[in-house]
């Protein structure tokens, strides 16, 4: 894509600047980590000063925030939501559960490594991570965007077969259309 070379065109700089400072997040809050989102957004930690803002629908969102463990049942939903988002889009894995399963690593109905199913740009570790950590994660994402390295959406598109194969291994009753973005 357009950031293979180290040098960026002026358009890219403007683009990335705008993208970096305006992150609409869609929180997929089924894990227990979701409880840390409200303090992050409200008065105490105020994520809005970084241009981070909640959004209600995937069509408008830039960042998909997966807060914690994903049951196999809800993975299907997450994939659908992710595919409904518009490029460029980023995924933040939130909490240990998304990295390696965390305390649910041997559970029969949760996935262990989120990155196998969706392209994660930034992991925030901790069980659960504190708001400072969450904000640190966002700042990291902003840095990546600025450098043009947050291209998970592109990787997902390129390796769609691999991702789909992984997803289908988990989701046995696949009812949705294969590829809907």
């Amino acid at each position, binding site marked *: 894509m357009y950031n293979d070379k180290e040098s960026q065109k002026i358009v890219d700089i403007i683009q990335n600047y705008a993208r970096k400072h305006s992150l609409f997040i869609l929180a997929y809050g089924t894990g227990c980590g979701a409880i840390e989102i409200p303090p992050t957004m409200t008065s105490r930690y105020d994520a809005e000063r970084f241009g981070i803002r909640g959004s209600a629908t995937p069509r408008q969102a830039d960042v998909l925030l997966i807060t914690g463990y994903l049951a196999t049942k809800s993975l*299907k939903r997450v994939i659908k939501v992710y595919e409904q988002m518009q490029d460029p889009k980023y995924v933040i894995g939130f909490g240990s559960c998304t990295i390696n399963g965390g305390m649910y690593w041997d559970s029969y109905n949760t996935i262990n490594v989120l990155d196998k199913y969706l392209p994660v740009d930034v992991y925030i570790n901790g069980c659960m991570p504190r708001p400072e950590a969450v904000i640190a994660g966002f700042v990291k994402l902003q840095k990546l965007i600025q450098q043009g390295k947050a291209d998970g959406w592109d990787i997902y598109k390129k390796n769609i077969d691999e991702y789909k194969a992984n997803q289908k291994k988990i989701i046995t009753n696949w009812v*949705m259309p294969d590829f*809907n973005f």
Partner: protein
Amino acid sequence: MNSLVLLILIIAGGALLSYFGHKINKILGNITVFAVALIIPIYWFTQVDFTETVSFTVSGFHMELGYNMYGRLFSMIVMILSPLALIYAIGYMKDQKKLATFYFSFLFSILGMTGILMSRDFVSLFIFWEIMTWSSYLLVIFLGKDVQKTGIKYMVFSAIGAYAMLMAIVIIYKNTGSMMLSDYFGSFAGFTLQTKLLTGILLLLGFAVKSAVMPFHVWAPGAYSNTPMAYTSVFSGALSKMGIYGLGFVVVNLFAQANLEIVGYVLAWLGAITAVLATFSAVFQHDAKKLLAYSSIAQLGYIVTGIGIGTELSIMAGLYLAVLHAAFKGVLFMVVGAVERQAGTTDMNVVSGLVRKMPFTFFTALIAIIALAGIPPLGGFVGKWMLYESLINNGNFLMVIMIFLSSTAAFLYCFKFLFGLFLGQQELEFDHVKEASPIMIIPMLLLSVFLLVTGAYPGIVFKYIAEGMTNLGFHNVNWQMSVLTNAWGDSVNVQHVYLSVVVVFVAFLIFITWRGYKHATKISTKDISSSGEMIKPEDNMTYAMDFYKPFERVLSPILKYKINKYYEDFGKGLEALFDFMRRIYTGNGQTYAVYVIVFLAILLIFSKSIFGY
């Protein structure tokens, strides 16, 4: 031969030809109807001489036919809308039975309207009026739906109107000794106040029934929605305008001249009340036909208000709205007909998402709805603007607020109409729906083009209105091609509005379509952001049931009172009365003799004081 007689013969002959054509076979019949639908307007626009008159005397009554400019304006509505509706009907009625009767009645109602608009005396007016009423009655009961309620309601109200008119005519004849309209107008000033009011109001009653003014609107929703839609577009578009035609000359030529503006004022208030209540009723309908029927009543309310106020600008507004209403309601009823034919139902709770199936129908509906809602830059706005300005210039502030309330609430049903039928999710059960046949689409498109053009150049209609208003006593009516001016000199240049909207729209269309369109994937209406919920193709997520529940809650204190209820109570009362009457009719001859004598005695005693002779 006289061109007017020939016109009537052509229409009547067309009716007979289509009747026999359809008796022989369908194709022949349809070809005949198509030919008739072309010949009538072509003849009218090219051959009819508007200065000609024809007069004859039948059993002592002198009858005279001849156009005046005011009648010609309304004739134009009839002559443009009806042939288009006839052509539409060829496609729309394809699968129906009894087509011969249908086209016969259809053409006879056109004959009736044409006759009304050129009659110069009360006898021919009344005859043609009855032709129109009866032929439309045949069409109201044509589908055999709800005949008991709708047909009887229509007939009862039409009869009330007709007999009111007849009574007026008799009184006029007694007072002037002539049946000519002009004699009546001429000698009106010399009547006593009682006669003035009696004749005028009886005539108004006759006309008000046809134009569905509160409280005589009860027949309209049922009649409009149970008639085949091809005819309803004429019914609501042109036939109801016959009432407006009559109201116009009674209010303006008679009462305003005789310093009885109060009658017009009362009428204007009735119009405003009609508009508000009918709009509120329309908002809560879930059948698209019923919605449009109530909306017609509301729109006629605006027109009546405009006529009733009686200033130059307001009459112009009323007449302009009458023309426009014919166009957009014509389109909308045709649209509903097309949907009914293609999808099988017009229930907005059931049908949804037809826009992808019927794009042309949707487009015409959109144009017509914008015009109906009176939003610039389309033609409907011009009429609304003139109506408001005339009311404001007159200082009728309460009426302005009522009309505004009604037309703001009209946005609600306007949106619901488009949303209910065309937008929302696509359903599996409507997957088979196809676009209507071209013979149905073309009349709709032609009328929508008219609506588009009047947005920038309302002058093409003003021209005829101004000529027509000379017969109402307004000479040198001030109009311009695309600048509207009110009595205080404030103006709107609709051409600039049009220009601005179109330029910005096109600029941004290019902007958003360039690059954007290619990157935008077209997706199905089931692929919505639903918080991860998997919507299956057979799930229906459209929110259409009780669409305006919040509004209903707001209005719940008012909605308790429905005028229909009063009529029903009245009907129940009548039933009780007749029950009582049945007991009087004992079947004994002597009792009847007594009744007759008593009745005659009462008549003798009171005739002096009631009738004055």
